[in-house]
């Protein structure tokens, strides 16, 4: 009996798409075929350029961060222990030597601090 129903359905001729639709669809298809290659290529190039610029900026910012910080908030503070040692040796040498040693010790001190921060990860406990 289901075969009868199937037969009944199959006997009817289904209406197809309107004739004008073919050209409309194919025009839209042709337009789309012309468009995306340029658009997608531009999009890919823009994304690649943005990534490169981002990486470059990140490098520049990292490289000059210490200089910028020094310009904005002044040089890093001198540890008290270093200042005391410099003041202690100044009478035995001279002011210039004491200042030079103090500068070098400060630099070493802050480099050591940075190394400690880096080794402890982004969120030191």
């Amino acid at each position, binding site marked *: 009996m289901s075969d009868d*129903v199937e037969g009944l*359905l199959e*006997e009817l*001729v*289904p209406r*197809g798409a309107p004739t004008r639709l073919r050209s409309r*669809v194919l025009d*839209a298809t*042709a337009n789309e075929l012309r468009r995306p290659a340029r658009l997608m290529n531009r999009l890919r190039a823009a994304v690649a350029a943005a990534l490169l610029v981002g990486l470059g900026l990140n490098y520049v910012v990292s490289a000059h961060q210490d200089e910028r910080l020094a310009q904005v908030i002044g040089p890093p503070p001198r540890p008290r222990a270093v200042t005391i040692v410099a003041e202690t040796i100044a009478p035995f040498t001279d002011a210039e030597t004491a200042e030079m040693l103090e500068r070098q010790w400060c630099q070493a001190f802050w480099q050591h601090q940075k190394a400690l921060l880096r080794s402890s990860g982004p969120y030191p406990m």
Partner: protein
Amino acid sequence: MNDLAQRLARGEPAAFGELYDCCGDRVHHYLTTFLGSRDAADEAMQDTFVRLVRSRDRLGSVENLVAYVFTVARNEALRGVERRARDNKRLEPLGAADLFYDADDPVRREQAEAVANGLQRLGDEQREVVELKIYGGLTFREIADVTGVPLQTAATRYRAALECLKEWFAR
């Protein structure tokens, strides 16, 4: 068909014309019953082909091109249904003239009316399976792939739909 898929993937405009000639009418009929309107089916048909162009890189590796076109058309139809729900649009039920060519024979015309009414009375899922099987010419395997249901479910829905239609015609 594999050659056509390769040409589609390369973006040859003539290949899209061949694809349209190969399954355009069947897909349009499916979209008409899915969306309940020939105008909406026209829109969805165009969107389907534009979508196929946009994803043409994938077409080269598609095993069953016709089933794939039906799948893309179905996705477009679902988007159309969502849009219509948002816009709160209501449609008139499809008549025999929307679905079948006019027959000179009055008996055949009556038959077409009965089938159109019967299809309207089926649930969406059952109507879809009948449409894909009888007028789309797809196998149960292909219907299962297009609708995303197991093969057995597709076959069961089809049989249940035929039973419903049988009861409807018997009245």
